[in-house]
């Protein structure tokens, strides 16, 4: 069962497809909502916050959106992975399927949404005539590290949430705190310098700022932030994999 790579790949493809179709099943625009949803949210946020912080930030829509896509990917993908085992409990109790496949598929599904929101980001950059930089290609590095982080956090949360369903509610609050601590819509300069150190420990903020440096400002992010993000992500990933391996077989009994 599921020994070959092609079987796993096909399962992953089917699961992602199921997520994509089931989310918007009764809507007229269907999958286009994956595109419109972030676009509309971006417009609302830009309208509100550019009044507040617009003067201190050049090209506020791009500044906001570049942070927002990273944060959205992190929050949606970790939440998806967290609920993946519980949501598919009915299937897991009847068919043998490697459980991590559900968590991986939830993350892959959000990755597709993330790629769609990229289109919006580049569209907004074109409209606001922001300059494009060759360093944007380097953004692959922080995105990859973020991906590793998401896998780790997702696996940990998937196990915890299967045992205690209120981890999900707690995590929602945590995500809200994380959003305010990621400098999505305000400039870092308004934060007192002592608190800035705490911010720089937040891996999502580090990912956001590295991404911005690559895409918006056209500089290669400094190596210390990247090294910090890499260490944090890999450690979380390892913990996630170990935790998941220990509890994988017991999860069906909790469903």
């Amino acid at each position, binding site marked *: 069962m599921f020994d070959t790579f092609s*079987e796993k790949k*096909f399962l992953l493809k089917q699961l992602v497809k199921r997520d994509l179709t089931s989310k918007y099943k009764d809507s007229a625009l269907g999958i286009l909502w994956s595109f419109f949803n972030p676009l509309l949210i971006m417009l609302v946020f830009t309208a509100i916050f550019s009044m507040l912080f617009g003067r201190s930030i050049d090209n506020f829509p791009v500044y906001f959106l570049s942070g927002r896509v990273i944060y959205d990917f992190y929050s949606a993908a970790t939440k998806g992975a967290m609920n993946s085992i519980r949501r598919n409990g009915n299937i897991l109790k009847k068919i043998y399927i490697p459980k991590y496949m559900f968590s991986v598929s939830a993350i892959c599904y959000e990755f597709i949404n993330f790629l769609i929101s990229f289109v919006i980001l580049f569209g907004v950059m074109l409209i606001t005539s922001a300059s494009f930089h060759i360093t944007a290609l380097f953004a692959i590095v922080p995105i990859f590290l973020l991906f590793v982080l998401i896998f780790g956090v997702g696996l940990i949360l998937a196990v915890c949430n299967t*045992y205690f*369903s209120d981890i999900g509610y707690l995590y929602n609050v945590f995500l809200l705190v994380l959003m305010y601590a990621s400098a999505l819509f305000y400039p870092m300069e308004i934060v007192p310098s002592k608190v800035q150190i705490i911010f720089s420990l937040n891996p999502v903020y580090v990912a956001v700022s590295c991404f911005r440096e690559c895409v918006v400002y056209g500089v290669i992010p400094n190596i210390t932030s990247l090294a910090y993000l890499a260490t944090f992500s890999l450690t979380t990933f390892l913990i996630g*994999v170990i935790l998941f391996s220990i509890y994988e077989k017991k999860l069906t009994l909790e469903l």
Partner: protein
Amino acid sequence: MGLIDKIKGVFIKDENRLILDDSDEEIAISVNHLTMEFKVTKDKIDTLKEYVIRTIKRNKKGKEKVRVLEDINFNVYKGDRVGILGFNGAGKSTLLKILAGIYEPTQGSITINGKVAPLLELGAGFDKNYTGKNNIYLNGAFLSMDEDFINRKYDEILEFSELGEYINYPVKNYSSGMRAKLGFSVATLVEPDILIIDEILSVGDIKFRKKSSEKIKSMMSEGVTVLLVSHSIGQIREICDKCIWIENGHLIMEGEANEICDAYVRSAKSGKK
């Protein structure tokens, strides 16, 4: 088992279920001292708040352990067709689920030689908003088939399921019989060494029932090892050559099919009186 092995087992290959026993190649399934316990609490704590409060107040009710299976031992040789008998709640389905890899046994071990096809519940992974066609692919993926395989077999499935035009309708509009037929058609597509069947032979109308039992028989004629749970004694006598009788999680009798069936029927009758 070391941690590294465990991680390998989960993410790379599911080797811990398939410990190949070279000493006896003829054994298809070997079950050794298998015990399965479910933790049951009368008031299940599944929120963190409750867990913390109860821990502080120290009135956590001890989790009761319910032994569903206790010290089960048997061997199934290649080509055997084994029927599993037992009243409701005896632990038959749990045994099959352990063999299918869904549950991990509390104690003991199982050894399986060959590719297993568990036909436990038909159409378990169906998405009701999907059309029949999409569900064939989705369900196939759940049963660890790959895309080429389903593409090749698609027409065969469609023909066997007798759904015709309805295959392009969403499954939510299907009758339960149609759903079962579709599930059966997908699930029996695999070419397994070991077939595990849990009371699914009684699906569909009389026409389909005949067809499905023929399908199972044709699969068995190719030398497949079969484990069958059924409440129909006639069916077990017809299909199986060996039998296992489980009651309250204990293995009561094991042996030639007709013999066990007779004993089982006798006990059922005496139980009634």
